[in-house]
């Protein structure tokens, strides 16, 4: 029986189980009066349906993972398989093709030899899928019968069904942990392999970065220039753009702007955060970088590069403006109105109130927001890949080209995906550093923000 048909059958019988369970429960209620039934008939129905459907589905999931190799073994045992080439890859390709033809996914084979194997495949597939179908059917009826016979007048069907629902919810929540664990394990695992080749000390303190394929030279893996580039772009230039613009925008919109202006400008500024980073990257590389370079040349800055830290940093800063401004907005709004009134009633002007009372009060929140923004900026990839360049230099000249952790991760991993070269593994070590740093920034920032919120609640 084909997969979809089987699924259809299972679901169909599940529906029947639902109807039967419900009918049986209705019968009880007719006998014992309404309150006699613990759970609504529907829940009895669900109980039966779950018993009928879930075990065969689990069985089928397992079976469909197991059966292909059983099928292949069976096919290989037939005489038709004797003529297969010894070379594993051709074998596999021919088998795969024969299989696809047998299952009707392919009309004609590319490999002529496949044709001979179609028949054995058909036999084996139908044999094993009948086993699967029979197994599923047995489970289905067993579950069905079990569920059905358990229904009684005071049977707590609802409680059982709800327990299944709760279990599902819990499993959904656990996926977040799984993902985190997956990230941490994959980063750590590959990083350990890397640190087997290059010492963490050389990696974290070296100032020379030029990983090349082939033999491992620990001197090539000094990541300090990358860290510096990341800081220069993400934590310095981008913040020099984003903090004043974001903060002042938030101040203007919350304290000065007419409600109508605020209502329009806020979403407009938020668009800045919604523009994909690849667009920013393109814009930075195509428009901003050349303009900045011209400007740098005009004012006589040496080594101005078209892929400058400045271009990437400025554009990244613009991208982060709404982020900073909405964090600042929240913090400013959390300062109680009474504080503002108090200051105004002393005869201070609005700007004095903002600078001397509101901002100091909102400072922890703003700082927390800035930390979050920094963590966003140093993890940003596309803008730096497209606009910051790849030269691992430790220059402080913002018009020169620098590279960042993320840009190097991309560089190291696009193309060379062989997993035991130091070059590839270095990307994971960089990823680990990035992960740890952004994690710490986030934890600190969230803690600061939370403390601050509590202060005014």
């Amino acid at each position: 029986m084909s997969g979809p048909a089987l699924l259809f059958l299972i679901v169909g019988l599940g529906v029947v189980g639902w109807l039967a369970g419900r009918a049986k429960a209705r019968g009880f209620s007719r006998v014992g009066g309404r309150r006699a039934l613990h759970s609504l008939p529907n829940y009895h129905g669900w109980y039966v349906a779950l018993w009928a459907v879930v075990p065969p589905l689990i069985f089928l999931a397992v079976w469909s993972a197991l059966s292909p190799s059983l099928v292949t073994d069976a096919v290989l045992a037939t005489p038709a398989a004797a003529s297969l080439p010894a070379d594993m890859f051709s074998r596999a390709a021919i088998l795969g093709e024969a299989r696809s033809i047998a299952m009707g996914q392919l009309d004609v084979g590319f490999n002529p030899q496949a044709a001979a194997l179609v028949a054995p495949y058909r036999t084996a597939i139908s044999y094993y899928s009948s086993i699967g179908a029979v197994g599923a059917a047995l489970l289905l009826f067993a579950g069905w019968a079990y569920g059905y016979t358990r229904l009684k007048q005071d049977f707590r069907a609802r409680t059982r069904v709800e327990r299944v629902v709760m279990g599902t919810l819990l499993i959904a929540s656990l996926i977040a942990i799984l993902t985190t664990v997956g990230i941490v394990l994959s980063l750590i695992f590959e990083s350990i392999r890397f640190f087997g080749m290059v010492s963490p000390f050389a990696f974290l303190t070296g100032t020379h970065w030029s990983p090349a394929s082939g033999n491992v030279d620990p001197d090539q893996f000094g990541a300090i220039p990358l860290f510096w580039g990341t800081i220069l772009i993400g934590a310095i230039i981008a913040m020099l753009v984003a903090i004043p613009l974001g903060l002042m925008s938030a101040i203007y919109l919350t304290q000065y702007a007419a409600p109508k202006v605020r209502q329009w400008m806020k979403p407009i500024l938020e668009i800045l955060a919604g523009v994909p980073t690849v667009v920013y990257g393109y814009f930075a590389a195509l428009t901003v970088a050349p303009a900045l370079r011209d400007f740098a040349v005009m004012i006589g800055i040496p080594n101005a590069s078209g892929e400058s830290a400045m271009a990437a940093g400025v554009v990244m800063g613009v991208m982060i403006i709404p982020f900073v401004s909405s964090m600042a907005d929240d913090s400013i709004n959390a300062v109680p109105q009474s504080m503002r009134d108090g200051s105004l009633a002393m005869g201070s002007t609005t700007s004095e109130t903002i600078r001397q009372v509101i901002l100091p009060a909102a400072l922890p929140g703003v700082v927390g927001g800035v930390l979050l923004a920094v963590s966003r900026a140093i993890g940003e990839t596309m803008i730096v890949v497209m606009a910051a360049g790849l030269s691992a230099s430790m220059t402080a000249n913002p018009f020169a080209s620098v590279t960042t952790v993320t840009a190097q991760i991309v560089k190291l991993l696009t193309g060379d995906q062989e997993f035991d070269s130091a070059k590839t593994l270095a990307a994971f070590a960089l990823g680990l550093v990035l992960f740890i740093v952004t994690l710490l920034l986030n934890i600190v920032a969230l803690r600061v923000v939370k403390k601050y919120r509590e202060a005014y609640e």
Partner: protein
Amino acid sequence: MNSPDALDAAVDRTPTDWNAPDMQARIRRRYASERRFKYVGLSAVAASAAFLAFLLIVMIGNGIGGFTQTRIALPVDFETAPISVDPDLLRSGSGEAALANADFQGLVEYAATAAYGPGANQYFSDGAWVLVRRQIAANPDLLLGKTVFDLPAASDIDIANKSEGSAEAERAVKLLDSRHALSKSLNVAFLTGGDATDPALAGIWGALKGSLLTMLVTLVLAFPVGVLASLYLEEYAARNRLTDIIEVSINNLAAVPSIIFGLLALAVFINLFGMPTSSPLVGGVTLALMTMPVIVIAGRNAIKSVPPSIRDAALGVGASRVQVVFHHVLPLALPGILTGTIIGMARALGETAPLLLIGMRAFIADPPGGITDPSTVLPMQIFLWSDEVDKGFVEKTSAAIIVLLVVLLSMNAFAVYLRNRFEKRW
């Protein structure tokens, strides 16, 4: 408490004279500073908005031409043309082979030379002959006489026709224009085709379809998991270690740089599970991991904003906790959850970095047929085109950006609409 009178004897002073000149000067200074501060704020807003406007104008300016296509009329006289395909053969059904063997490239070259002089072949897009072949396959009768084909121009002609091109191309445009051979029309190939090496033929449909498939996978995985997890955390989870760990994980996942998810996908999905590289499946799963925490956080906020009195009311008439949630809380929180989901999906749709690491940075010309086919996505296509040598791709890149921005902005606008429409204050 001290007697105020005793105090006064020691330290009192004359009352402040608010009208003294130095006071007045001070006031003026304070107001000037107030105005300055306000203008600084206004300029910050204006600068941010101006940057956005600048970005959009540059992209639209560069890209709007990408939606149109210069076409050149190519008259072909099959009586004299160096090609021999029997139209009857085409009708008979064994035409495929006949067409495949015929030299349409040569035909186009011949006809172009005949019409516009030597080298005129260069005026046409590389793939122009394929279109001729396609038209003839559709209508073999064309072979019987003279026909004028309307074929896409090569990208340098296209550029010269739309704006400033190279001197050579400008000359060609002048020549063609003088023969009334040029026309401009909607670039259907751009909206319906896949990637191509010739900018005149390159299209975004392949990438858009890849994006749609990827988003489908993302949505199918992230939405239910996100909603269920937020329900669990907000409505049922007892405060214990496990819940704390879940919470911390989710908050951190929402802040992890996207490239890290790419590393995860590479290490786990591709290298460990052997899932197909460059496929919407892997891309979608990766982006789902990124989107799920966004949905959970939005979902929890939406659920939190459902007033407890409604839960009490339902519990009070004897609803179970599952019933309370699924009959009352979830329906009321749904608009908020949807808003968060759309915003999360929009973010995923614009994401490039993690997909770079799973092989989506590739030339993939055929639009994907399913979630395991090799495919690229819109932002990746933008990235790839931004790297192309041919100048014609500048326009295409910006045009693709316009398409992406239109999709994203409409998603965001829809989210804002949802939020405003269903925002409830209890």
